[in-house]
């Protein structure tokens, strides 16, 4: 499994995929956080990162599908999938390897943004006046959200040979999982089950973790979310033979 993981990660790093996605992520989040007047911290006047944390999920909705879309789709199109499956490796190990490699890339995209935290804590008055607990919670929340998005991306990539289709499906899945449940819960006909539907959505749990309170329910939610989609991926890959 480690061999496949290493190959995946190196292929991200040796192609432009990693640099372009991470670069665009940092560029857009940097511009929105520091430069554009509507969202900029400097115009907002409060030294806090809340704006950044509510923005990143929307960027991830596009960036993570871009990272994961090739995972299985490209291998199936090129035929290299046949070489991979005929190695003495279990299918779940291949799925996990691809999932973890993409997740590491998401982590690489998040790490440089810690500098925003540092800058903002310097800008606070008095210096260092920032809610660190909430920031740490938000980073954990972002990582878990990224993990959930990645599992949906890997799943979508297993559905098709076409990378564009994989991208669109996973962006739609991410958007629905993040916002769709919230919106659906407001439908009048569903009023009696508004809360359960609301709780199915990622946003609800992300906000809860972002407050800096690590609730086991949220952790279990995110983990079972990833596990569910990885199991589905495993089923699809195994069933297509």
């Amino acid at each position, binding site marked *: 499994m*480690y*061999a*496949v993981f*290493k*190959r995946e990660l*190196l*292929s991200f790093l*040796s*192609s432009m995929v990693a640099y372009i996605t991470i670069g665009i992520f940092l560029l857009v989040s940097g511009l929105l956080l520091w430069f554009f007047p509507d969202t900029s911290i400097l115009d907002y006047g409060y030294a806090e990162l809340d704006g950044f944390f509510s923005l990143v999920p929307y960027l991830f909705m596009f960036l993570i599908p871009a990272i994961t879309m090739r995972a299985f789709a490209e291998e199936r199109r*090129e*035929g*290299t*999938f*046949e*070489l991979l*499956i*005929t*190695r*003495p*490796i*279990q299918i779940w190990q291949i799925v996990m390897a691809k999932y973890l490699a993409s997740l590491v890339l998401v982590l690489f995209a998040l790490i440089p943004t810690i500098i925003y935290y540092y800058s903002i804590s310097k800008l606070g008055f008095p210096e260092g006046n920032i809610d660190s607990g909430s920031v740490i919670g938000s980073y954990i929340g972002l990582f878990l959200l990224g993990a959930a998005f990645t599992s949906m991306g890997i799943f979508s990539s297993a559905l098709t040979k076409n990378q564009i289709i994989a991208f669109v499906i996973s962006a739609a899945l991410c958007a629905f999982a993040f916002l769709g449940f919230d919106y659906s819960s407001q439908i009048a006909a569903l009023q009696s089950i508004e809360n359960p539907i609301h709780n199915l959505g990622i946003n609800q749990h992300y906000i809860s973790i972002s407050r800096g309170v690590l609730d086991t329910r949220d952790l279990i939610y995110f983990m079972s979310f990833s596990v569910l989609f990885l199991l589905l991926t495993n089923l699809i890959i195994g069933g297509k*033979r």
Partner: protein
Amino acid sequence: MSISVKNLSKHYDKQKAVDAISFEAKPGRILGFLGPNGAGKSTTMRMLTGYLIPTSGEAEIASKSILSDAIEAKKHIGYLPENTPLYADMYVKEFLSFVGQTYQIVNLPARIDEVVKMVGLTPEQHKKIGMLSKGYRQRVGLAQAIIHNPEVLILDEPTAGLDPNQLVDIRQLIKTLGVAKTVVISTHIMQEVEAICDDIIIINRGKIVANDSLEGLKKVYQHQSLEDIFRKLTA
């Protein structure tokens, strides 16, 4: 027996791509797997290598079931799929090292050098796979199939699209490998069969229509050319 196949079938809805075939292959002999396009050659090979799951039937590679003991069976197989799919963005040695790691080979760098020399990749070993010519890509494909020194080699049209010089080289290589291993190759080229195969299986519409040694087959059909025998059996 290195390969033993019993009533192996693969159905797609109502179409029987492979219909209850049985055969065996022995070490030290090269088995030619012949048949018209769409006869079920690749499907059979894909089932033996674990890429496709058979609808029914059973097969054993080196006495390991491909169904119940798939991972063990796969360790004994070297496989070159049709059209030689490879990761074009990887370097030759990087790719071979990746393949070697999936088999957990000890002393991998030495083994890679050995295999590179064996298949004649030395002059191109520092290039990216995507930059190689068809002939050299084929050699990389063979190198990844033999790197773990498997008992069984399954090669799906290993010489398709090669020029005459490359053809001779690759055939020679397969012949050398066939001395100690069980080799199954599929091909359309009859001269190739006469040049390297010891045993022949002809398959048509998912069924085996001939299974004999090359001499045996020629004796039965009174020394007709292999081409005529093939046409008679599969027309």
